[in-house]
């Protein structure tokens, strides 16, 4: 599935990734070893998340989750 469309769909249109940004991010992620090219059909390229990419994604998710938890605790007046 096309990444730009998928990002928009899974976020209910809240997040849009521009083609320039996507192109540069894919290049940066590939250079950092976080994604790997699996298939090239004409100009269409397919990528897969590498082990390093999955760990980085998990760490980023944890960071955001902790931030959200801090917010919830603050708003609910816990502790």
């Amino acid at each position, binding site marked *: 599935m*096309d990444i*730009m469309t998928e990002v928009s769909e899974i976020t209910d249109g809240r997040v*849009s*990734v*521009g*083609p*320039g*940004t*996507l*192109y*540069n*991010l894919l*290049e*940066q992620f590939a250079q950092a070893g976080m994604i790997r090219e699996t298939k090239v059909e004409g*100009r269409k*390229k397919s990528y897969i998340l590498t082990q390093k990419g999955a760990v980085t994604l998990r760490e980023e998710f944890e960071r955001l989750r902790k931030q959200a938890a801090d917010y919830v605790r603050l708003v609910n007046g816990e502790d």
Partner: protein
Amino acid sequence: MSARYKRELMTYLLFDYEGIEEHLEKMAARGWFLETPGNTIWKYREGEPAEVKYAVTYVPKASQFDPEPIEEQRTLEEFCREAGWEKVGDFLQAQIYMNRRPDPVPIETEEEVRLEVIRKAMKKSFVPAHVVLALIMVFNLWLGAIAFFADPLDTLSGWGSLLTVLFMPIGAAVVAANPIAYFVWLRRSAKSIASGGTCASPKAVRLLNKWELPVILVFFIGMVTGTAGEGNVEGARYMVFYMIGFFGLVSLLNITKNFMKKRGASRRKNIAVFVIVDIIGAFAMVSLVMWLAFSTGPSDYAEPDPYAPEVHETFLVKQTVGELEEPNIYYEVNEIKADMFFDWCLEKRSSEETYRSTYVETEDADWNAEQCYYRALGSWEEWLLVKGCSIIEIETRTELTAAAKKEIIQQLGL
């Protein structure tokens, strides 16, 4: 009906994507659509005025010497097409796209990524080119300053030389302003992005670049007319031919580059040919300009009167240079109109060293001057006199008697 075209000088800096986008959108609203973006001249085609969105993005690996778009440019084009953006063209590392849909998804949606790409792209051509240009300008400024501070009288008395001296610091400042503006913009943008904002807007330098050419043109016309007005027609012709030659060389280089691209020459081959044409062309241009300016001229050339004084005058200094037949002397009378320059000009001229000989202040009532300096240079005797607001220099091979000195003062009307 055939299409109408319009050409325009491109004054935006390569990293100023915002300025370029706004300008192209305004042009489209007036019915002019960018067709060919060159490095200096942009060609527009007339069409129905429309609200069109333009976006400028960058491919750092792209080069103006590539025979066709490189892999990175083609992939980006494909991505952009998917999002409704059509490629208009490219210049250097900048890629220009347009979108006719209302409120399209922008090409760049992450400011941090955008800034990093611009930084990489500018490192490739903009920064080295502008830094080298600024260094050349600073070097020229330094050479000009040495000549000016060594003896300011010649410079202050001629419009051509005065405008050249005034233009050099302005030119150096304008040239240095572009790389400085880029680094300031880079820093401001990084700061803005770190606090959740967007890239900064380089509005001040945009305005500076817009007015750069008219200012240069005014100074150039001033220098040419000033030089011609002082009787130095050959010098004025040299300036005009040099300017024509410079633009001719730039055009020749562009034609060569485009010809090589059309023939499918590789980037490396194109750059090699470009450099060779540039070196040979520069030598040929300077030789041709020198020949045209100094070897050709009016055929009814008359031998000038050797005793007719030559006068150079500005609002600061009036300089009269000439020769007297009897007593035989060469003279230079500098009437300083601006008091603030008097002491400085006198100090510079009296301390000037020629063949290891400098002036020594002396007493000589025959000259009837407020101050008197003397030096001997082999068989030559030189006098430097101060009378009122004038600094007078007299050179002679004959020993001057008291009567001869009075005669000189009288003949020079001092």
